[in-house]
């Protein structure tokens, strides 16, 4: 058997599914953040696999941009989590209900 791009697509889909499951089912903001990183990385894997299958380097360029955006997102998101924690002494999203109407 030869490893086709479909194998990587399937693995990436499973990783994305696990990540979205963690995002939906956990209530620790840090775990949710790590699940988002997992989903981003699953998509990166599909980009690289498609880049190789098509012989086009555009997929790898897209991965680099996703990396940059994810790094910026982590910096700002963790700063938000830290400032929330300084104020409320918790990182659980269930405790945060200020925006409730």
């Amino acid at each position, binding site marked *: 058997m030869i490893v086709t791009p479909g194998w990587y697509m399937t693995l990436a889909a*499973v990783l994305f599914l*696990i990540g979205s499951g963690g995002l939906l089912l956990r209530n620790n903001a840090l775990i949710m953040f790590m699940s988002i*990183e997992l989903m981003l990385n699953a998509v990166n894997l599909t980009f690289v696999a498609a880049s190789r299958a098509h012989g086009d380097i555009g997929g790898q360029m897209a991965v*680099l941009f996703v990396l*940059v955006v*994810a790094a910026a997102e982590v910096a700002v998101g963790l700063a938000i989590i830290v400032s929330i924690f300084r104020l409320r002494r918790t990182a659980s999203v269930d405790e945060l209900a200020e925006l409730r109407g």
Partner: protein
Amino acid sequence: MVEMVVFILMGAVALAGALGVVMARNPVYGAMGLMATLFALAVFYVVHLAHFVAVVQVIVYAGAVITLFLFVIMFVGVDRAESLTEKLSLQRPAALIILVGVVVLTGALVVTDRFDWVISTAEPAQVVGSIEEIGENLISVGSSDVRQASRWLLPFEATSLLLVVAAVGAISLAFYRPRRSEEETGTSDSDTGSNR
């Protein structure tokens, strides 16, 4: 053959790490699982000849992002293993419905043969993602085919702006002190954390 062995081994590592992220009670173990997944994906990138992307993956993700996560986990507190119980009654069923929907849609895409390159066994064209190649794609404007070569120049410059904005935002969030508004509303500093 070699690729299949690598795929099975590293795929198992990636899946185990991903499950560790989602299921670990202690966030530090979750961060370790995420790091295992990121390393496994870096190995896949090397398999796909995306060497530069693999190096950046290890340096940026496993080096910087995981370290940042660990700093924040240590700050927030590692010893408080939170409960896995859900307070919102509709959250779990709705999440399960969404997950099953994603599985069904993904399976439908695979079954319908919409993308035949996904299941093609043909040896793919060799694209080596070397630093030179990626640098040419990013910032080269002097090539004969200018439109093709500078395709990624504008997004590249936009990411520099994005990084500056993110850095300034993170720093200003770190310097933010809510004391002044607390004093205006008549609340003293001592009970901000514990009582609210």
